[in-house]
């Protein structure tokens, strides 16, 4: 065997040994555990309003009051904000003779709300905030409005907030 052949053979053996050694070095312990947090479901969002205001058969100078209640459908999480917009009165001769006021609470006195008005703090899911609404038919209302009708609308909008 020549010196060159011997050197090549030694080199080949060395490479084979390196491959074998390298393969063995990658063996390692390992363990994997899967976490299963599960499924989360989204809630829903919607509000309902109700009032006790009865403005049928008003006469000039009369003031009628009622309570507006805002609530949210159950069966979900989350808090909410709501905004009261300026009341509107349907067009007609009676419209100019009616004055609508909305108060911060069920008390029909004190400062009235200026619109748009938004509740300052997020409401709990089950909260049922209430406001007094008063409607006044002007004492100077002409007889021409007698028997006329009008529709009063108080726009209420709501916005979702996180549960906490």
């Amino acid at each position, binding site marked *: 065997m020549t010196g060159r052949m011997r050197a090549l053979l030694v080199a080949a053996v060395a490479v084979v040994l390196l491959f074998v*050694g*390298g393969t*063995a*070095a*990658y063996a*390692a*312990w*390992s*363990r*994997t*555990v*899967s*976490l*299963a*947090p*599960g*499924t*989360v*479901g*989204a*809630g*829903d*969002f919607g509000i309902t309003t109700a009032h006790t205001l009865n403005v049928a058969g008003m006469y000039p100078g009369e003031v009628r009051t009622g309570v507006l209640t805002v609530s949210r459908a159950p*069966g*979900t*999480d*989350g808090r909410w904000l709501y905004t009261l917009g300026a009341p509107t009165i349907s067009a007609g001769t009676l419209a100019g003779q009616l004055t609508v006021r909305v108060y911060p609470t069920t008390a029909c006195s004190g400062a009235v709300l200026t619109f748009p008005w938004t509740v300052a703090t997020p409401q709990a899911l089950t909260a049922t905030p209430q406001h007094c609404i008063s409607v006044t038919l002007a004492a100077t209302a002409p007889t021409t409005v007698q028997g006329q009708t009008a529709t009063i609308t108080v726009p209420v909008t709501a916005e*979702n*907030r*996180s*549960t*906490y």
Partner: protein
Amino acid sequence: MRKTTKGAIAVGAGVALLLGGAGTLAAWSTSTTLTSQTVTAGDLNLTTAAGTWYWGNTGCTAADTTKTIAAIASARIVPGDCLFYQTTATVTAVGDNLKAEAEIQGTVTPTGGLASYLTVSTTLVPTTLPTGVTQTSSTLLSIDASAATVPTHNISFTVPATVKVVFNSATANRDGATTSGTIAGVALTLKQKAPAVAP
């Protein structure tokens, strides 16, 4: 005397000399028995306890452990909500030269109709780091058992494995309402690192 006779006599003398020489090979000797020793393997183990869901704290930086969600299937989350699923992982690493990494899957993609409104992230951060444990990133711990107490080289510690779920607060209208998203198969892995010196 014939030549053949002389040769036979010479061979016999040689054999006799050799036999005499063999008799001089006797020598002192001694032996001892090695007592067998027990070799014990180290350990590398990872277990998890049952997890719990919590609402997030103000600012959604951590779970508010005073606000447990008893049944996640009954919760109805809304935009802006932040939840944490938290379990305790127990890591054991025993070995004179053992090095390992504990890692929680960093990227988690939920499935279901709610998935596109959810952001899911994970952390693996011990309250206190034991000797031999390094926080490489918020999802990766490097463990070097050789740095643990001699001679046991035993590191055993618990670490909260946390999955954070956020319902995008910018979700408009009623998008995603009444849908659901599944977060499953979040892998928590403990893996031995190749030794620094090949055997």
